[in-house]
């Protein structure tokens, strides 16, 4: 039910304005490139708009996140054409910085150099789609296992397994890609 004085249409537009950046980030983290991420977000909004009267748009964060994750996984299930990496394709679109100044997760973040970031990116690209999605929702979105299970339509033990195996696989791949740095 919309708020008094605000129609569903207005609330939907507000959601598009307020949430697009966050949704692009999630989609980008799951699908691996910015052009596809934009398509995913656009399609997700288009799908939701068709059935906009069914949903409560006062707090649409969970709905939008779930829709974008599912749309991302749907896109990943389709046959994929070769996609240029973001570094060469649209460096202007997504800010690529060599260093991050300790945002978000703590002091360790500021110590990661760009070479390490590239290695991690390559390692994450090799993860199975569901492992990557679960890891993104857990670490980037900081969602609980219960919320992740809800978004991915899986059981909590399944989500735990995906995250655990994803981390194991990532650690192994990092050792292979940069043994001097990650062979701990």
């Amino acid at each position, binding site marked *: 039910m919309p708020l008094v004085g605000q129609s569903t249409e207005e609330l939907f*537009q507000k959601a*598009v*304005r307020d949430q*697009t*950046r966050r949704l*692009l*980030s999630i989609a*980008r*983290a799951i699908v691996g490139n*910015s052009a596809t991420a*934009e398509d995913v*977000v*656009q399609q997700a*909004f*288009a799908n939701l*708009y068709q059935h906009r009267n069914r949903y409560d748009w006062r707090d649409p964060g969970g709905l939008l996140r779930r829709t974008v994750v599912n749309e991302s996984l749907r896109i990943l299930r389709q046959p994929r054409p070769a996609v240029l990496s*973001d570094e060469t394709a649209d460096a202007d*679109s*997504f*800010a*690529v*910085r060599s260093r*991050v100044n300790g*945002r*978000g*997760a*703590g002091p*360790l*973040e500021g*110590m*990661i150099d760009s070479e*390490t*970031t590239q290695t*991690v*990116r390559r390692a*994450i690209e090799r993860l199975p789609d569901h492992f990557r999605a679960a*890891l*993104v929702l*857990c*670490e*980037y979105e*900081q969602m*609980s*296992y219960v919320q992740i299970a809800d978004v991915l339509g899986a059981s909590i033990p399944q989500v735990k397994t995906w*995250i*655990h195996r994803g*981390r194991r696989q*990532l*650690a192994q791949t*990092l050792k292979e890609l940069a043994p001097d740095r*990650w062979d*701990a």
Partner: protein
Amino acid sequence: MNVSDSDFSMLELMLDGELPEEAAETLRASMQHDKDLAAAWESLQTQRAARLTMWHEDQPSQQRANMVASRVMREIRVGQAWNRWGWVSRLVGTVAACVVLGFALGWYGRGTRSAGPAPMAQDTAADYRVELTDETGRAVAAQTFHSLDKAVEFANDVDQWRTAQRRGGGSMVVPVVEHTDQY
């Protein structure tokens, strides 16, 4: 690193904030004595920090996000317009199809009727035949007419002629009017 699977799972739960506080305290205390456990914890944190750095770097600028948001709204408006026009064109198409169908059915029905025997044609094709017979009933002559009046008139004439012949002692000729179809 020599960390058991169960310990590693506990470390992961702690990393994800899913481990109850008491269990987390116990695990932290264990790390004070177990260097492998502490190293595993540090490794988990370092790897997560690397992933977060990468995801933050990939985050789009606000300007780019605004462009995408504008595109989303524009696409939705275009989609709405197409839906409206689609509805109108479907309506117009349906009406046109009905008109064409009605015309076709009418044309077909009209064609079918003209192909069969038309009542008027049957009427016009009907002829009236006046046969002249002798005393034994054998036809000795015949005359056809397109109308009954003419045929009756002819028969009356022949009757009058026959009466005159009787008076004169001629042979008997009887006119018989028949309705015939000319097919």
